[in-house]
């Protein structure tokens, strides 16, 4: 892998490395108990019971129990993970003791579930936890008598934990092929509709019939094995290379690299052109929603990520865009009905959004940090209440909103289906991404960043902070208003309740989880937080539970987001970088994923 080609710096002094400490069994036990609490919670929130009827692989793997034992697997993986190499110690290697740690963690987790089962069979807990029903007990105990069931649960959890820890013992290449293969099988099993739609769009229904138990059915055992083998072989062959694709691209001479990225961009654009055609209306609708959120996220990224102003009322600008578009195009608009085409209305939408941006920004110019966040939160709510109010109903239609917004029309082209809307939304996302890139390395982009770092010094160094703040708010507002106008046209109506505080929060979470200040990160964030929940409709009642868990896990393990901007990653992992610098010299870096950051340049 990567370490093979990188020239190793000379060791300045030969030192005797101390043997690494063995894996900590006490920690494993603690992790096991934490895992047990998580497993009990998963059972008590009803996830196990609800999804027991959903078969991942027909007929052997129901999703409900898999959830439970995946937790045992995950905590076993954590417990069996060799600790990061400390200065002066030889890098830790996984051995059978790690397996024991994993099994211990898993077994303790299982024991907690066993205790839950025992409690459930003795008392009726449904007064407090509605979901702890006799049916759930039946599922948890596999229909066995209690004593045997507890032994079975503990045994299965211990095995799951040991397998989790066993991942660390695998040779790298095997691990790098095995894990993706399992993940792909899981994805095929979870996204049955999506996969079916994809095969239908490519007129390859025979694949659906082969892999699944009929259209819309679950993955069959044969199907699962097929997917597993195909992915495993593909990754095994790719894993043989000594350099990653990224390193090879970076090693290319400049001209070749430009040509490569142009070709790559063209290929991606062509694929995207066919996405809505192949994926059909449902998936296109989901992608449209994600695109609109992405547009907002890119706008908010400028305000929060670049200029460092925490805006919690960002949905207001989205609403201004949607309402301006609606008033100017709809024949049902209560006050006046110019009935413009949306294309013609867009400049007015931009102006309205810019004015709204100025209106919000002007009173908060002298505010910083928390105070700014609270005031913008208030502005967001004020906007929603105004659009909802009886007082302004003659203009905005009050709670009835504005309906009958005509579809987007470009020349002779009349867009109506979700598939059609994919293209204009995607175009605006591209524009927003370009604007973000262009402003990043510009005079005002630097001024925003300077203001984010230290406002008074930025001002003392010549940055007009008033202009900087106003301009950041205006750019963010205009980008959000595009999203609003497209949203209104696509849905065909705007109602005040579409502009809830939850929208602001979701957009902010997209940025944070994706990676603040980074365009690819924000795109991935929108994909994870908007596309996944919409494709996995069956989980919708647990959507916010998963959001919460995702946020906590991200903040603990990867606070810089999925694809962070380089500077944020460096800032948040400065200690680890200096630690890894030592590893580069005294080499023999453990080939586990114990160190996640890249070595310093």
């Amino acid at each position, binding site marked *: 892998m990567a370490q093979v080609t990188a020239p190793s710096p000379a060791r300045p002094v030969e030192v005797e490395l101390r043997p690494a400490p063995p894996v900590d069994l006490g920690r494993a036990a603690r992790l096991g108990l934490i895992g047990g609490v998580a497993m009990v919670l998963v059972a008590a929130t009803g996830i196990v019971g609800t999804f027991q009827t959903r078969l991942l692989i027909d007929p052997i793997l129901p999703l409900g129990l898999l959830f439970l034992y995946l937790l045992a697997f995950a905590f076993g993986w954590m417990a069996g993970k060799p600790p990061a190499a400390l200065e002066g110690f030889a890098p830790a290697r996984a051995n059978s003791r790690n397996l024991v740690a994993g099994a211990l963690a898993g077994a303790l987790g299982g024991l907690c579930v066993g205790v839950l089962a025992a409690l459930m069979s003795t008392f009726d807990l449904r007064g407090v936890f509605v979901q702890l029903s006799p049916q759930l007990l039946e599922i948890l105990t596999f229909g066995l008598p209690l004593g045997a069931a507890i032994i079975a649960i503990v045994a299965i959890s211990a095995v799951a934990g040991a397998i989790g820890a066993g991942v660390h013992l695998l040779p790298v290449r095997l691990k790098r092929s095995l894990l993706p293969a399992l993940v792909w099988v899981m994805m095929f099993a979870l996204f049955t509709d999506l996969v079916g739609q994809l095969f239908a769009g490519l007129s390859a229904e025979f694949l659906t019939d082969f892999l699944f138990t009929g259209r819309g059915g679950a993955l069959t055992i044969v199907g699962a094995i097929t997917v597993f083998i195909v992915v495993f072989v593909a990754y095994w062959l790719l894993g043989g290379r000594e350099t990653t694709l990224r390193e090879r691209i970076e090693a290319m001479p400049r001209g070749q690299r430009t040509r490569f990225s142009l070709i790559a961009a063209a290929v991606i654009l062509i694929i995207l052109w066919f996405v809505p055609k192949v994926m059909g209306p449902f998936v296109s609708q989901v992608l449209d929603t994600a695109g609109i959120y992405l547009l907002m996220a890119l706008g908010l990224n400028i305000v929060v990520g670049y200029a460092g102003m925490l805006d919690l009322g960002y949905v207001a600008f989205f609403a201004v865009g949607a309402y301006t578009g609606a008033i100017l195009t709809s024949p049902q608009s209560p006050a006046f009905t110019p009935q413009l085409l949306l294309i013609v209305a867009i400049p007015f939408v931009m102006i309205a959004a810019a004015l709204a941006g100025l209106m919000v920004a002007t009173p908060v110019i002298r505010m910083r940090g928390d105070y700014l966040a609270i005031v913008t939160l208030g502005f967001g709510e004020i906007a929603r209440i105004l659009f909802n109010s009886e007082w302004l109903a003659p203009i905005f239609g009050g709670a009835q909103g504005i309906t009958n917004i005509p579809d987007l029309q470009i020349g002779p082209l009349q867009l109506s289906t979700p598939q059609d809307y994919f293209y204009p939304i995607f175009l605006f996302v591209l524009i927003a991404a370009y604007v973000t890139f262009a402003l990043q390395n510009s005079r*005002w982009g630097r001024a925003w960043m*300077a203001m984010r770092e230290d406002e*008074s010094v930025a001002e*003392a160094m*010549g*940055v*007009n902070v008033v202009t900087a703040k106003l301009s950041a708010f205006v750019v963010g507002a205009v980008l959000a208003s595009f999203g609003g106008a497209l949203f209104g046209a696509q849905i065909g109506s705007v109602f005040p309740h579409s502009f809830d505080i939850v929208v602001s929060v979701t957009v902010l979470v997209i940025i944070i989880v994706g990676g603040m200040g980074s365009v690819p990160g924000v795109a991935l964030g929108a994909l994870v937080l908007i596309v996944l929940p919409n494709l996995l409709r069956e989980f919708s009642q647990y959507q916010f539970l998963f959001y919460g868990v995702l946020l906590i896990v991200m903040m603990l393990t990867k606070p810089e987001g999925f694809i962070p901007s380089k500077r944020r990653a*460096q800032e948040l992992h400065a200690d680890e970088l200096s630690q890894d610098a030592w590893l580069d010299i005294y080499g023999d870096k453990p080939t586990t994923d114990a160190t996640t950051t890249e070595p310093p340049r």
Partner: protein
Amino acid sequence: MSLLSIESISKAFGGLRAINSLNIEVDQGEIVSVIGPNGAGKTTFFNLVTGMETPDSGNIVFDGHNVVGLRPNQILELGLARTFQNVRLFPTMTVKENVMVGQHCRGKAGLIGAIFKTKSQRSEEARIEARAEEVLSFFGTRLAGYRHDQLAFVLSYANRRRLEIARAMATEPRLLLLDEPTAGMNPRETIELTELIGRLRDEKGYTIVIIEHDMQVVRNVSDRVIVLDHGEKLTEGTYDEVSTNEAVIEAYLGRPSERR
């Protein structure tokens, strides 16, 4: 006429009179040191001149403009730049970006220009970058080459101080205010910086006001020394005049312990 003239300014924080009817003149091309015990009002004096705080009364005239009441960025644009006692860089911006922020006030390009990459925006951007590199080259190899793209927070302490001076230089000032530039430096770095301050005047033509506690540095760089105490000017003059002044010895320098 003097470049900077301060006419009986006063500043009080609650009951504490930080600056009390202070008069100071700084001529073009001078290097003036401001010394005094802790709490004498030296940094407050800098904050007042650069507009980070507003005086309660009095006038600050820089190059014929009364700067009292102007915003810090407007004062900087007139040609009055400073560094900070507790180094205040933009930590997660690169070294070069830090200096390029200093050029902000000398540019005109707006958001529209940046989005459409107009010809004037591109040439201005190239000029800002060239200017930033030129400023950094003033520090020899200290801030050269690969350091341009390093984030400011990874720099050593001495280099951070240098980068702060570079950022101030990039604003193309006429008067440079340095707040304890050698604080926390080792003796070799202090000597190097003393030479650098001389070069700033000789090669760049800046007028310099410097707050300094290291009396070696004060003796080596300054044409004139101003002593502050309790927000008032105790005395001023050449280093030799000031260092033998009874009041200064009493308030700040102290006398050698008497032999028994």
